[in-house]
């Protein structure tokens, strides 16, 4: 059974432990600006929404990459950026309609969630279980994928 990140924004307190854990895992520094999972603040509603790549089947980033620098990890289903191969052209960053693959100026490469080889640091670090790593059937993954395809029918909410 493949697993995926499940995000429940209702449980997020905005503590940013996930961002700290992600940047530590990937850069050995507590630099939330480098995190691949981002917690978005909604001041009006007083809410926080953690958000990162859903490892979508369409793999917009992977198919758009002109130099074959994004590969599928068959074990986790993650789409992984091969840093030495990435030239930093950023085509993937505009191709991904979710905004979850981003350019890092310091490295000249792009980065995205790679599910930490099947042990996501963000989920481990989350103190309120707003981010969990569970069997895909249990997550809202399909729902999130459907959202991506929404067109005129969706109702925006406040």
């Amino acid at each position, binding site marked *: 059974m493949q697993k995926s990140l499940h995000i429940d924004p209702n449980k997020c307190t905005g503590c940013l432990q996930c961002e700290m854990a992600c940047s530590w895992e990937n850069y050995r520094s507590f630099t939330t600006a480098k995190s691949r999972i981002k917690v978005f603040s909604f001041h009006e509603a007083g809410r926080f929404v953690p958000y990162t790549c859903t490892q979508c089947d369409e793999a917009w980033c992977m*198919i*758009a990459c002109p*130099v074959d620098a994004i590969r599928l990890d068959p074990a986790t289903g993650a789409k992984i950026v091969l840093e030495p191969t990435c030239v930093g052209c950023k085509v993937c*960053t505009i191709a991904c309609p979710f905004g979850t693959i981003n350019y890092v100026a310091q490295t000249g490469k792009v980065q995205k969630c790679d599910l930490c080889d099947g042990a996501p640091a963000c989920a481990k670090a989350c103190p309120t279980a707003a981010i969990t790593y569970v069997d895909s059937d249990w997550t809202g993954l399909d729902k999130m994928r459907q959202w991506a395809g929404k067109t005129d029918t969706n109702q*925006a909410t406040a």
Partner: protein
Amino acid sequence: MRHLIIGSGPAGVVAAETLRKADPAAEITMLCGEAGPPYSRMAIPYLLRGDIPEAGTHLRKDADHYARLRIQLVQASAKAVDAVARKVDIGGRSLPYDRLLIATGSRPSREQIPGIDLPGVQACWTIADARALLAQARPGTRIVQMGAGFVGCIIMEGLLSRGVDLTILVRSGYMVRRMMDATASGLLRSWCEAKGVKILTHTQPTGLTSEGGVLQVALANGRVLPADIYLSAVGVDPNLDFLEGSGIALGQGILVDANLQSNVPGIYAAGDVAEATDCLTGKRQLNAIQPNAVEQGRIAALNMAGRPTRFKGSFVFNVLTTLGLVSSSFGEWQGVPGGESTEVLDPAHYRYLNLQFEGDRLVGANTVGFTDHVGALRGLIEGRMRLGVWKQRLMADPTQVMQAYLAAAHSLV
């Protein structure tokens, strides 16, 4: 089933791979117009800059990739298509097909000025062009570049990294005017000038001559610029010449239907040569960008393999790095009649974000210096998502794009 693909750029390669998955028993042949493995023109700027070896430009990195997928590569250019006999003339012999994909891409537009055939005049489009530039461009080499569009801008960093003396001629008043508004374009210009590039707007040459091996670029105002290299980068045109007399209907490109099939059953087109319908305007147009090429290659291949699949329409967008300054454009960045717009501008830090709305939908955007989560602009625009209350919030603070996206697309807030 014999599938023949003309062209080995991103559209052709993705089509071949998709065909193999969808039709395991099919014969798949891909015509490669250039020598060497299929490569990406998008990677050429990084080759010029010395970041990667030539192999780093290859579209697929495994040497046996095509053999493993039983995709036969034939190094040849198509000379003519016989749609009745179902064969393609490749000069001296012809290849039969059951399904044909035309994915021949673009070539640099040719300037119509005297002297354009002189030695020292060249384009920067193919890997052979890049090799020639790498061989010639040394510290102090005088390069006069005509054009500051996408290609003209993306190669500047590689050229400057070689220490050349670069002068850029721009026919219009704006750089990258096909993807950037005047404000964004102005930021790019001042950024380039601050890095030592000379930019002459409202300028184009009247002719080229050669004196003692040095090109003389004559301008309309009487000025003459000496140049070791004249780099012509005035845009691209689709490769369609070989289709003359084929019966395939052409406009600016190959006119295709929602399945990316031409007027001739069994003949499809993808990438720069395909004139498909725009998903926002409903108008037919060319859309010569990498993500469009791969998506069309994939959809055309599914249809060729007998799996009817509709192309949901071209989406116009692009991302450009000009001497390290990142800019992007999405959809109807020029705005629409009766629409509204909002922007933030910080010229000192070369940051700019402009959003264009129609009702409570985002329809276009231009960015300079913003790179985080820009893909969500595509999601919002192409998905035609209703923004509701987020429209006014974005009008007040355009940088809240990701929050608006999460609210509109995912109903998370």
